[in-house]
């Protein structure tokens, strides 16, 4: 029988049995802004990774975790597009990206079937109508999603990982795109630091976008 504790990676308390070890080792191992530690940096100081053994049941929890994020993105971009306050590069961005996020939601819901979580209620405030706030929110969301998928990659079964990689790749393109529009460095780091489920949930909660589960 699998250890039930491992399946609680996404418990409502946000507790993550892997702690921050994954984020730490990658952060130490590879570039953080331009300088690389000597020798064996890629997997330096390899900790005892308490990687949760992949399983279909765990895939389901992880995909539902991802679905929450895709719901947020799809709703955010959808509302911004509908409000019609964006123009130029930002309009081109939101027009394209909202379709992608809707497709991500659709895929995850299809895969999860009746186990798919329901879409929460959102309140995006002025982030969907004020261009500067939209830009900042879009950057924050895309960065969060990348870190979320990257953080769970090793916990997924290989079949699901292959599909998740196709999604995170597009989210990373979104991040590069919106940052370029904003005049910010699209790819400031040599590696994208992953985050634990708990860290991601804290990021999401901090936005205040989600009003109900």
């Amino acid at each position, binding site marked *: 029988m699998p250890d039930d504790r491992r399946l609680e990676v996404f418990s409502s308390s946000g507790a993550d049995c892997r702690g921050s070890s994954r984020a730490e080792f990658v952060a130490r191992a590879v570039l953080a802004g331009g300088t690389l530690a000597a020798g064996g940096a*890629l997997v330096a100081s390899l900790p005892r990774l308490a990687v949760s053994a992949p399983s279909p049941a765990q895939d389901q929890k992880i995909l539902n975790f991802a679905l929450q994020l895709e719901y947020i993105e799809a709703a955010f971009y959808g509302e911004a597009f509908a409000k019609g306050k964006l123009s130029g590069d930002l309009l081109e961005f939101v027009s*394209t990206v909202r379709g992608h996020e809707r497709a991500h939601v659709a895929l995850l819901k299809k895969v999860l079937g009746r186990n798919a979580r329901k879409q929460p209620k959102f309140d995006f405030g002025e982030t969907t109508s004020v261009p500067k706030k939209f830009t900042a929110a879009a950057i924050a969301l895309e960065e969060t999603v990348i870190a979320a998928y*990257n953080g769970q*990659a090793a916990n997924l079964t290989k079949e699901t990982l292959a599909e998740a990689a*196709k999604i*995170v790749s597009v989210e990373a*393109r979104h991040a*590069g795109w919106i940052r370029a529009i904003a005049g910010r460095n699209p790819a400031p780091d040599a590696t*994208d630091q992953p985050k634990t489920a708990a860290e991601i949930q804290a990021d999401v909660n901090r936005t205040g976008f989600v009003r109900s589960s």
Partner: protein
Amino acid sequence: MQSMSDLTLGDLDREGAIREAVELVSGDTRAAFLSKAVVGGGALLAAFAAPVAAEAAATSDVAILNYALTLEYLQAAFYTETERLDAVRGKLARVPRQLGAVERAHVDAIKAALGGAAVKRPAFNFRGVTESQSKFLKTAVAFEDLAAAAYKAQAARIKSPALLAAAISIHSVEARHAAWMRFLAGVTPAAAAFDEGKPVSEVRAIVASTHFIVARPKKSAKKRPKYTG
């Protein structure tokens, strides 16, 4: 599943590099790490006590890392040469500088993980694409799209969770680069909702068609071979 021979890219003298390293191996038999199919990838890692060895690195992981390393060598050389030739000026000058630094860092990190099992850097001839801004941008788009697609196709084959996490964290950076270069080139940064991976055979064919890789690497331990072209 790709066979080991599919993982040799261009004219790389991978066998030569490994043969050199094998000579240095002591008689330690980490037999458990050895795959029957391959000469000694596992033993090399154990002998060099590279971090990868800590998890009984699969020889397939070594092959995948060497494949990734080759693509990173290619990108690093491309950006480095573009910067040296001062081909991109003004506002975009930072692009080859920054991407070069990142790809060189990827090279260093993967080489460090592989230790003596790392393939040597090939020689390149970039045939003019490092000499003008427009050619540079078009090539950069192609390279970054390709690198991202290559990593995607390999992700599910990596056995070590630590290496997977590292590869995944590099993969998304390549995708950012791709979007950035496309943005600068005036093409859509994200053409589809899902990015497909490209298998080794397809990536190898694309790289071979460029003729950018031109020679077997020298077997002698020359630290910084000159870039040709």
